[in-house]
């Protein structure tokens, strides 16, 4: 057991070191690669905090999908004529900012060292939710997401849809209804195509497994959906598939399915089980799994569309 404290210190210094690299790196691409590595290291910190569900989400969404988003954006910006005019900040501004950042970090650190004891906790309520309305869910995180704080989870899906609408709205008027630009402009390398062909089927299986196992073990709709989204993006990056037109019916239906089913079930709970978002006892687990299934569909379609960006082609093309 004496190895773990050393490991914690090494991990913490690695996380801060890689974060320092992403901030100080000269090149945007290097900085994004640093950020992806940083996210994966951070996932280990989450595991040390007994939060494997958060670790999975951080690795998949926080580091993976965000990394693809930033790399794609960097490529698209690089295609512009005047890339990044250099405006180096002066030394005095650097020092002033450094002092400010140190003060903020110091204040936050002091607050952490002075947290109240005994700590406030909602764990008993969550435990009641896990054994009550969300009956049969052994993973307390899923119980909280789907039962105790179900309204938050539904609204978060709506945030995803609003974000997609926001991204699409930024496109040019004449491109409306068309497809977003491909994630990769040039012809992909053969190894990339091979990777997509071999990885995607396996990844889809793992994604479905993570969703299915999420009721009782770490995992769930977010993590599984993010993995499915990543697999779709891998095939798009290898140009095995292009981004779909944004006016495609199936795409819009898939994106809306998650929150729509969630909301309908919530309203039905008001009639059948006595309160909004209450699940009928006895069949709570199958109902929750059904909602989560549609949520996976929404996440797996919304995340790649957020990365693909606004439509860029004419609809008639």
């Amino acid at each position, binding site marked *: 057991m004496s190895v*773990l404290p050393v490991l914690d*210190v090494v991990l*913490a210094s690695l*996380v*801060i070191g890689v*974060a320092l690299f*992403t*901030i100080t790196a000269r090149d945007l691409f290097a*900085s994004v690669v640093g*950020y992806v590595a*940083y996210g994966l290291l*951070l996932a280990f910190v*989450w595991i*040390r*905090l*007994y*939060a494997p*569900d*958060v670790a999975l989400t951080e690795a998949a969404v*926080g580091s993976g999908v965000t990394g693809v988003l*930033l790399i794609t*954006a960097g490529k698209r*910006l690089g295609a*512009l004529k*005047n890339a*990044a*005019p250099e*405006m*180096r900040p002066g030394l005095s501004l650097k020092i002033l*900012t*450094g002092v400010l*950042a*140190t003060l*903020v*970090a*110091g204040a*936050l650190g002091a607050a*952490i060292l002075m*947290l109240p004891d005994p*700590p406030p*906790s*909602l*764990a*008993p*309520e*969550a*435990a009641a939710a*896990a054994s009550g309305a969300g009956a049969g869910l052994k993973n*307390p*995180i899923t*119980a*909280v997401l789907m039962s*105790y704080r179900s309204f938050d989870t539904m609204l*978060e899906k709506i945030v995803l849809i609003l*974000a997609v609408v926001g991204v699409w709205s*930024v496109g040019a008027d004449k491109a409306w209804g068309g497809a977003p630009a491909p994630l990769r402009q040039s012809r992909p390398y053969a190894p990339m195509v091979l990777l997509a062909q071999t990885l995607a089927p396996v990844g889809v299986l793992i994604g479905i497994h993570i969703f299915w196992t999420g009721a009782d073990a770490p995992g*769930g709709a977010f993590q599984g959906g993010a993995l499915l989204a990543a697999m779709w993006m891998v095939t798009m990056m290898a140009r095995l598939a292009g981004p779909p037109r944004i006016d495609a019916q199936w795409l819009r239906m898939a994106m809306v399915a998650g929150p729509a089913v969630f909301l309908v079930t919530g309203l039905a709970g008001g009639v059948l089980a006595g309160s909004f978002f209450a699940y009928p006892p006895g069949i709570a687990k199958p109902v929750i799994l059904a909602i989560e299934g549609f949520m996976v569909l929404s*996440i797996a379609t919304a995340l790649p569309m*957020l990365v693909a*960006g606004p439509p860029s082609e004419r609809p008639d093309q």
Partner: protein
Amino acid sequence: MTPSVLAGLTGAALVGLGLYGLILHPHPLRKLLAFNLIGSGVFLVFGIVARRGAAAGFRFDPVPQAMVITGIVVAFAASAIAVALILRLSMQSRNVTLDAEVWTRPNGGDAT
């Protein structure tokens, strides 16, 4: 020092680092990256609140953890909108900068 306090202090340091990058980097995408660093630092601080709130037979408080999961997804959605805005702004002004003077300069887009 317990692992959770160490993780919390790491989070505080990340917030400081991110703030530094957010203010000083001229490139909008680098600013966005720095902002995401701040976000993950805040999540980590929230994570130790979850770890400290261990009760009712759990080794953590599931409620803050579930909120962090929601937070990570929402942070990604916000980043995607920011990227879309940055790209459109750059296409329109033909300049990758947030400096308003560059856009208003006559023929600024073509002066290299």
